[in-house]
């Protein structure tokens, strides 16, 4: 029985990915290139060598975290579209702490810089959470608006207030060695941390009272309130924790990969998180394969262009198709499970 349930749960994401790749192949073929060769190049660069895998996992690290941020929201009945803004805020805050604060040993400086990222990411999430909890404003609206505000704000900060001296580009100074995330066997160590965190989040939902609270609020707010669970607090927690994890993802990018904050990096990480969370069926462990797949494709897109003459944007296209294929059934189900949806779809019961 477990096997049957398993296959039914994961059928949608697997089919979604396959369909997206099939349509992608057709588009590559229309371009006049060989789809087989293109995909072969994509996958051998992403997964075929030690250095390829290292690159893939490096790319997957912030994606696991942004996927988790979206997942926590979904579990609590919230659609957190603001992961991009939360992640970028975290990336900026961590980078600032990484270059501005001097004279600390790495075992203090690095965690401190990451805590900066987490705190600021959580703060941004909390704004949307508070607007939802206390004013009833829908989180989709507020997080989209916050995304725009934050992207403009960090652009300004990195281009003016905290710009690297003598630099024309909008970017902060380079972080100090004492805030740089070391690599383990040439693998970015942030990845292992992200996996541990995914497992931790899964465990929290599976086994703890806090996870049960969030999940109950996500499934039936009236029943949650009636059972003594504070809906407001659950919304605040889900948005703050999601924002914090996104902020951590941004911090790991700044401190482990980019070495500073630069607004042109980090683009799309939060939005890929939505695809990954939905591919993972809002399961915290489910984000891992999705993040690795998408991380690999992102990392190897340029090599594919070199080998097969296919524009790297084809990867964006395939990911858009994945999102499209995976959301259609998911949205239908979500609509049915929410209170409004239940009103629309009810009628013929018992």
């Amino acid at each position, binding site marked *: 029985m477990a096997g049957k349930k398993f296959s039914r749960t994961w059928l949608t994401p697997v089919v979604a990915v396959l369909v997206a790749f099939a349509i992608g192949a057709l588009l590559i073929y229309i371009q006049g290139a060989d789809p087989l060769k293109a995909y072969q190049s994509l996958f051998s660069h992403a997964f075929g060598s030690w250095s390829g895998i290292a690159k893939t996992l490096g790319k997957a690290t912030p994606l696991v975290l942004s996927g988790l941020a979206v997942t926590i929201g979904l579990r609590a009945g919230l659609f957190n579209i603001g992961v991009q803004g939360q992640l970028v805020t975290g990336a900026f805050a961590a980078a600032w702490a990484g270059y501005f604060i001097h004279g600390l040993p790495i075992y203090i400086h690095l965690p401190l810089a990451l805590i900066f990222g987490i705190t600021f990411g959580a703060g941004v999430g909390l704004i949307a959470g508070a607007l939802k909890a206390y004013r009833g404003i829908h989180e989709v609206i507020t997080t989209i608006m916050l995304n725009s505000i934050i992207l403009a704000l960090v652009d300004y900060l990195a281009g003016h207030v905290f710009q690297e001296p003598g630099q024309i580009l909008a970017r902060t100074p380079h972080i100090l060695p004492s805030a740089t995330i070391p690599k383990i066997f040439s693998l970015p160590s942030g990845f292992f941390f992200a996996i541990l965190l995914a497992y931790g989040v899964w465990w929290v939902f599976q086994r703890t009272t*806090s996870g049960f609270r969030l999940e109950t609020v996500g*499934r039936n707010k*009236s*029943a949650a*309130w*009636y*059972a*003594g669970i504070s809906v407001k607090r659950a919304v605040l927690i889900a948005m703050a924790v999601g924002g914090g994890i996104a902020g951590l993802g941004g911090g790991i990018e700044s401190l482990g990969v980019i070495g500073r904050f630069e607004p042109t990096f980090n683009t799309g990480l939060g939005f890929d998180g939505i695809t990954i969370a939905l591919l993972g069926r809002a399961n915290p462990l489910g984000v891992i394969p999705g993040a690795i797949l998408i991380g690999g494709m992102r990392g190897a897109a340029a090599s594919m262009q070199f080998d097969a003459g296919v524009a790297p944007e084809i990867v964006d296209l395939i990911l858009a198709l994945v999102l499209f294929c995976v959301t259609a059934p998911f949205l239908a189900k979500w609509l049915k*499970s929410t209170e409004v949806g239940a009103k629309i779809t009810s009628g*013929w019961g018992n």
Partner: protein
Amino acid sequence: MSALLEITNVTKTFPGVVANESISVSVSAGEIVALLGENGAGKSTLVKSVFGMVRPDSGEIRIKGELIAPGDTGGAIARGVGMVHQHFQLVPVMTVTENIILGDEPKRGIFINIKAARAEVIALSEKYGLEVDPDALVEDLPVGTQQRIEILKALRKDVDLLILDEPTAVLTPQETDELLQVMKNLAASGVGVLFITHKLREVMAVADRVVVLRNGRVAGSTSPKETDEEGLAQLMVGRNVVLQVEKGEAKPAAPTLEIKALSVNDDRKHLAVDALDLEVRAGEIVGVAGVEGNGQRELVEAICGMRPRLSGEVLVAGAPTPDMHPHGVHAMGVSHIPEDREKHGLVSSYSIEDNLVLNQFDRAPFAQGWIRNVATLEENATRLVEEFDIRTPSIKTTAGALSGGNKQKVVVARELSQDTRVVVAAQPTRGVDVGSIEFIHNQLIAARDGGAAVLLVSAELDEILSLADRVAVMFGGKIVSILDAKEAERGLVGRLMAGLSA
């Protein structure tokens, strides 16, 4: 005379279940046919076949002699068949008028002629004697009134055949009697009525013919003239049922639940409970009888901390309970079987196991600090499923997959398995099958005998009369009379419920 509706040998199987097996039913003009059966007997499936929402495997359905193709969703409606659903199909934020005219609005130019619509609704409601306030918002109205709007909506479309799916499930005795009269009037004017129900009294009162379904088969066809309630009940469940609850003498002790000068507003901010006083002693069942909408719902919600109290207090064993804090009230030993089990009582997508601890998941032994204790949860669920006769394939099954009766047993099991000093049961058997009703009644009596103070609020007068040791009649937000079970005779209680003096 040819039949309006002729269902012949309809069979429908779902994976693992035969929902309908070779069922034949016909309804002629001017006739009331009752389709009687327990929950899950196959009544709804049969009606869905008529409307094309279920495709029968075999058999045929004719309306006015014309064959309706399987899966033809518009065929029945186009031929003048109207339907009143068990679950409301109303837009809560719209007014009564807007809901009734929805889909076929009187127009002036491109605008809705709301004045004409309003007049039409008033005329309609007078014609059938179904009183509604055309300007009220549907979301503010009690369920009984919402049901009335559903019926008006169906009646507006000049129907020849009206199908009513458990229409009285949510109505008060008075509203039910009114509806039964409406059905008779409709039949007298030549409309055919197919009345789906599991209530014997109503069948006896209005039906010309009765078709009894059991486990997807026709268990028998009869008429009220040829049989009585006992006979129908036997056909329905296939065994003798005890309609009268058997219980011993109550041994009441000190008052455990004390309600003092409690005032509460309803959703429209009108006073619904007016300085109400009531005491329930340990070891007795006090039944609150009243026409729905006289403040019973508000009373229950205020006691259980789900609705703000304007003034007054609610004491449990002498200690004041918190306002607007359902969990806090619960923690003082107040078990509550809520009126709306789907909204408050259960999380339908959760397993039975999780639903059984919904309001105590964070307490020992179900959690140790932050960690939920999986072994205890399973133990608890396995024990309660057995003890409360919850019919389910597994404790991991989601509550939403259960039948109405079993859902309610999950709620009852959770509430009554805890250490409880007070039980507040609101409409505990609404939409529940006969077998489960009997079980739930016995559980309430067991709670009483275990020393709990039980407050029972029900729109089913029979339920109150057979369970309660004392009957408190509620009218206009006050308890107008408290009767001993011995002196609470049906006619007397009915008069008091209507606001007349004894």
